[in-house]
């Protein structure tokens, strides 16, 4: 599909350009790039964990509130992009904190 190829191609080109700039102009090594990718993956992993925990807690809280109060709360409240964004912030902050000591 054109959309798939175009998006991937744009990202591939800018990635290669950034790599070339980093290597040639700023003298960065390929090894340090590999380390940066590993750290990025750790951040993504932390984000996934926080998102999963937030969702599980959210579902549990809603079920408890439904069972114990007359108030109805929809599960679709958890279908909010802010939960994803905040979980990403949590994951990043946690990873940076963990590595700072």
């Amino acid at each position: 599909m054109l959309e798939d190829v175009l998006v991937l191609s744009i990202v591939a080109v800018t990635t290669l350009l950034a790599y070339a700039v980093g290597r040639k102009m700023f003298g960065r090594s390929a090894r340090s790039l590999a380390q940066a990718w590993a750290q990025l993956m750790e951040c993504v992993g932390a984000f996934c964990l926080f998102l999963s925990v937030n969702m599980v807690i959210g579902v549990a809280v809603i079920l408890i509130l439904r069972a114990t109060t007359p108030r109805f709360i929809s599960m679709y409240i958890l279908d909010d992009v802010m939960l994803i964004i905040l979980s990403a912030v949590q994951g990043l902050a946690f990873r940076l904190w963990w590595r700072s000591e």
Partner: protein
Amino acid sequence: MIALRGIGIAATLFFVFSAFTPFWNFVGRRLRLEPQLTKSDAIVVLGAGVLMDGTLSHESLRRTVHGLRLYKRGLAPLLVVSGPTPRTDARRGGLPEAEVRKAIALEMGIPAGDVIAISQVHTTRDESEEIAARLAERRSTTILLVTESMHMRRAMELFERAGLRVFPAPSDDFPRVAESPESRIGLMWRALIQLAGVVYYRAAGYT
């Protein structure tokens, strides 16, 4: 940290795979049900949200339009529209989604006697039970069910469990038309939400 790295790699690969391959289109096509636009006793349009100013959400509007078109084609003599008032909107005097939809139906020329608005419901299960009870009063037993394609299977099970014969009339065909990376991620999210709903309803004994 090794474990976190592994989770991150797996998640990234999953995200890229989901966005740039037709995997979720394939899954979606397996989950959705083909439309069966058969003459029925009623067309039932499930709720999908209303804003505080009385504007239907995108999904709600899509379903409403689809239901109106089915009625105009003469597939059923009765249109049932559902949808509650969000609690905060009720305090501010907001209209239930069902009443907003009914008002639109009347503006489109549908006689008031051919439209029923069901607003005292919060979940699909509530909708199935309440609507089945209201239709039983009219001795209506068959319905054309209008909801989004990913939601249809779970909704249909509930309405059949409530005693109705259900013909699916999905208001979209996202598994077929989701072709951009963003729309495939949206399709993946919808499919995962509905799969979670199926698991929850099975665990709770609702289906």
